[in-house]
């Protein structure tokens, strides 16, 4: 465990709750603790707070409040979206189009559907980590009922051409009126870039509270009016029959406050993060050789930097940095701890070595230049130390970095 300084550079995995968010939430733990389904005053107080939060979350994404369904997190939002649409549309077709770099939750859901006889087309993302709209066009079939492409990737931050895919799906629907819906996982994007469901043209959109400075335990699914969605958590009238279960009022209130702050502070947060990231990437580039930056340098979220360090393995680097109090991640948060090379980095066409040596640094609104300096001081040393112990190091001078 780190002794002195702690620098958290893993904001894509989760963020600390903002003190303002905690303050907004606290009353709903104690005095205002009512069940939002209760008819009495305690209940109505909670109900009103949930409604306010719903409006804030809706505003963040340009939706109507009654199109927002609160759930327990981003994974549940993705489950409700994909399983809900597929269950409801099953009679019309059993084909889904998605990308090769979706979050593990979406990946897992698609694999489960395949086991039940669904067909899944996974679009390539090429070296820059971005889906091509032509590929979506080409993949569309008469029995396609769902297109799900994430708005921004969680490992490399690349932003996908959602608007274009949205209009493609819409025009497909107009050509011959049919059941085809478009979902986008905006868990990483929300609060970090402008979001508007009308502009994006999506029918469903997933959000997670803990990625935008609210506590873990809340999320939301945007469901455009008219979308047929089979509920997944059954047995109660909550959330307009779309998600049963006593509403997690404190988490929802916090989510609402965090959504409001994200909207108000988005530009300044993004500018801050980009500034830190530029200093960081420039510094790493100057100080460490044999590295490869992953993901389109321009078409990325402002806060993510993903770098493959050759000749060493990500987890060793992660733990070496952790021993110095620096928190980063390898692969996506969910799959770290397993030994698979990041499927996202592999999807860029990198080899196993580069995939295993990939580290995600993700900045947050509270990081400082001093944080970056600290990391820039330590990182080169740590990398060098590990390389000295690596049997691959002998390749160092022989082969130039090549990115297949």
């Amino acid at each position, binding site marked *: 465990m780190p002794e002195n300084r702690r620098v958290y550079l893993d904001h894509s995995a989760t963020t600390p709750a903002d003190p303002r968010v905690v303050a907004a939430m606290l009353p709903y733990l104690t005095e205002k603790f009512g069940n939002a389904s209760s008819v009495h005053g305690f209940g109505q107080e909670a109900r009103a707070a949930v409604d306010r939060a719903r409006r804030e979350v809706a505003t963040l994404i340009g939706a109507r409040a009654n199109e927002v369904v609160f759930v327990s997190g981003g994974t549940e939002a993705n489950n409700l979206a994909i399983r809900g649409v597929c269950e409801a549309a099953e009679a019309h077709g059993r084909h889904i189009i998605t990308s090769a770099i979706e979050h593990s939750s979406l990946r897992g859901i698609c694999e489960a559907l395949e086991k039940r006889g669904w067909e899944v087309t996974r679009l390539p993302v090429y070296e820059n980590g971005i889906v091509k709209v032509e590929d979506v066009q080409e993949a569309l079939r008469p029995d396609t009922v769902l297109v799900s492409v994430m708005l921004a990737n969680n490992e490399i931050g690349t932003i996908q051409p959602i608007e274009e895919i949205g209009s493609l799906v819409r025009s497909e629907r107009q050509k011959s009126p049919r059941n085809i819906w478009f979902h986008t996982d905006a868990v990483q994007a929300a609060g970090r870039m402008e979001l508007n469901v009308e502009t994006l043209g999506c029918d469903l959109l997933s959000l997670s509270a803990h990625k935008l400075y609210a506590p873990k335990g809340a999320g939301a699914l945007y469901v455009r009016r008219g979308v047929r969605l089979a509920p997944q958590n059954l047995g109660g009238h909550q959330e307009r029959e779309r998600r049963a279960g006593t509403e997690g009022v404190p988490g929802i209130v916090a989510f609402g406050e965090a959504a409001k702050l994200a909207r108000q502070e988005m530009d300044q947060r993004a500018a801050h993060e980009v500034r830190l990231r530029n200093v960081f990437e420039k510094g790493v580039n100057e100080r460490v050789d044999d590295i490869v930056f992953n993901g389109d340098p321009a078409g990325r979220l402002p806060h993510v930097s993903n770098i493959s360090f050759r000749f060493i393995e990500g987890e060793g680097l992660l*733990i070496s940095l952790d021993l110095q109090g620096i928190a980063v991640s390898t692969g996506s948060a969910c799959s770290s701890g397993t030994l698979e090379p990041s499927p996202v980095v592999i999807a860029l066409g990198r080899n196993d070595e580069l995939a295993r040596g990939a580290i995600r640094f993700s900045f947050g609104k509270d990081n400082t230049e001093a944080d970056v300096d600290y990391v820039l001081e330590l990182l080169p040393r740590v990398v060098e130390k590990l390389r000295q*112990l690596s049997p691959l190091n002998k390749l160092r001078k022989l082969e130039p970095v090549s990115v297949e």
Partner: protein
Amino acid sequence: MPYSQIFKNHFENPRNGGELKGADVVAEETNPVCGDRLRLALKINEGTIEAARFLAYGCPPVLVCGSALTELIQGKTTEEALLVTRKQLVAAVGGLPLRKQHAAALAIETLRSAIENKKSGGKPTFPT
């Protein structure tokens, strides 16, 4: 970090890392499933391991097992070294989670390769 103090100590201050000039034998084994790789170089004098050095590529347990293994075997005869078990090595690093046991297995395997190679008088399995 989900590891013990002993583990962290080996990881931060690896013993006997690097190449070994004038090694009598060098073995490098890889785990074909996950790509982990351990290289072990030994100086053996009249059946006794006088020096051992390792290089590791893979998750931290591979490095730590390499480090601990060199400590365990230095000064032992090759016969004694062959008796070192995976369990002993795991104990020497302060325990390993189930899903990281393969790192210790790789280390033992590399040790056997090195010693057996030497016994049969063969060439190093992976020349320097």
